[in-house]
């Protein structure tokens, strides 16, 4: 694995059983993601986009093959190590924002740092800095139910990047927001990628996301159909 390579999927398959039917969500996929990429997985529903993100983020395990993140085979990690790995090396942005409802925007963004036992003063500095970057500093004390969808997604981005993970996995991040909010969110992620070098991997069927992605990985039936801009 080259130094720039963050993610490598080697012959990865993921098979689910639905009753007596075997569904092959991902089928013998090989894929590399390099540091600093702004990439998108695209394809129709059921093409395996979310499953791939889940496996890279250690939320799911492959039925065959191996997933490497920063050179480590995730299958070799214990449950505790996987938790720490997700905490320290992966940022998640979900389609439905998925903020913790009992925490404020500030506390949501701070959550991962608190799990990492980062000292309180440093947490405050870093969280307020990232909330300013995503334009949510003024809403720091609001709870998720007091924020719009776009605002919640910006807080989710803040939570995903505040711990400076190796990669941010964003599952349909613009699916539940209006066009204007979607554009703002994409601007924001692009800016974080450009200025801070944060690696992003999206799953999407939003054309606006695909247009912005510098690398577009097209999937069909769990297989790689095309890899555009992967260089």
């Amino acid at each position, binding site marked *: 694995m080259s130094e720039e390579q963050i993610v490598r999927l080697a012959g990865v398959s993921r098979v689910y059983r639905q009753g007596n039917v075997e569904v092959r969500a991902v089928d013998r996929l090989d894929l590399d993601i390099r540091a600093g990429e702004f990439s998108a997985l695209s394809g129709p529903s059921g093409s395996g986009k979310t499953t791939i993100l889940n496996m890279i983020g250690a939320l799911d395990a492959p039925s065959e093959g191996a997933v490497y993140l920063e050179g480590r085979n995730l299958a070799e990690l214990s449950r505790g190590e996987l938790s720490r790995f997700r905490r320290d090396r992966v940022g998640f942005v979900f389609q439905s924002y*998925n903020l913790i409802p009992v925490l404020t925007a500030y506390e949501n963004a701070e*959550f991962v740092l608190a799990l*990492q036992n980062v000292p309180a003063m440093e947490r405050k500095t870093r969280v307020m800095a990232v909330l300013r970057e995503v334009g949510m500093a003024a809403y720091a004390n609001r709870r998720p139910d007091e924020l719009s969808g776009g605002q919640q997604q910006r807080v989710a981005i803040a939570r995903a990047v505040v711990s400076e993970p190796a990669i941010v996995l964003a599952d349909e991040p613009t699916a539940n927001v209006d066009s204007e909010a979607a554009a703002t969110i994409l601007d924001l992620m692009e800016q974080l990628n450009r200025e801070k070098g944060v690696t992003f991997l999206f799953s999407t069927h939003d054309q606006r996301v695909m247009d912005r992605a510098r690398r577009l990985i097209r999937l069909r039936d769990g297989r790689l159909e095309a890899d555009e801009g992967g260089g």
Partner: protein
Amino acid sequence: MRLNTMAWRTLSRNRRRTLITSLSVAFGIFLAVTFTGSGDYSYTSMINTSTVMGLGHVSVAEEGNNARPSLARWLRDADSLRIATSGLPEVSGAYPRIMGQAMFAAGAKSAGGMFMGIDPALETPQHNFFLRSVVDGALFAEAAGRGALIGAEMAEKLNLRPGRKMVITVTDKDGELTSELLRISGVFQTGDHAADSGIVLVPLDRLRQTLGYGPGGVTLLAVYTDDLRRVKKIQADLTEKLSPTGRLEVLTWRETQADLAGLIAVDRLFNNLLQLLVGLVIAAGIMNTMLMSVLERNREFGIMLAVGMSPAQVARLVLVESFWLGCLGLALGIMLTAPWFYYMSRTGIDLSALVGEDYSAGGVLVDPVLKLRLFRESALAILGTVFVLTLAAGVYPAIRAGRVPPARSIKEV
């Protein structure tokens, strides 16, 4: 991590559910205090009432007297025993007494019964139930006199009242029949049929002469304490202190009144069993509530796990919720139970209309007024048990929360 903050906010998010669950904990405390409190009160009351009818919380007698009571087994120097016993800090009273069986006759009528020889100068109503139950006349004044305090039913049977005479016939220390003429000084009525129809109090010194005992002779020294939990210690101390003085046996009320001890043990067992069942039902209710709360929040736990919280941390969060729910329940329980306990410990509920005229059960006089009394140990046990049960009820939901599959649960709406 903000586990406490998160737990409190989660509890306040569904206030009605939190209140209902806390109230069920509080209700558990209420029931436990009522059951245990009535037990602590009634057992204490039964034991005290029973012991002030003669034998004391702890009794000192000649060896073998408890198994085979006989007037031939007697202690020679009651006064020095009494002085030695009274020196113990836990002892609130020690009384030399002679107890045995006798025939009582007046005119052509006679009745069998028990006599209790007492020194009127030493005895107090606190430790002698008959003295507080006098309904006619008074206790005899002189230990060497010929007075007698007789139960109301026996007085009626022998057609006696204060001022009239009767003859007591007993077997003396050598096994010879001997009689003594007594004059009724008063009549007592305890409410217990066995006592009222079968007990006569007579002067100690007169009885010593009748039985052929020396000046310090008694059949037992009845020892009393204000704290029933101390009887074992008193027994141990007295055994150690009195063992050089001869072949004595120092027994607690559990040994001298084994029937009462058995009755209380069985009743306490059922009481505890009932409380355990109530506790388990309440714990099951709390677990159900916690489990519902956890299942409703699958997605939330999924997010927490996805962003790096470990399963153990998620489980801990649910346990912290249980902890605070338990604290809330305890606080509510104390608020709910305190006024009830205050009223019941002071006033109580008079059940005499239900009990009838004979206030005895299994040969033991019972208080017809239902009251509550709680020993500190019982109170701590209740609070501790309820708290532990509440925490335990959170364990399974906590484990479930930690095992939520994040990838699937995040998609739940």
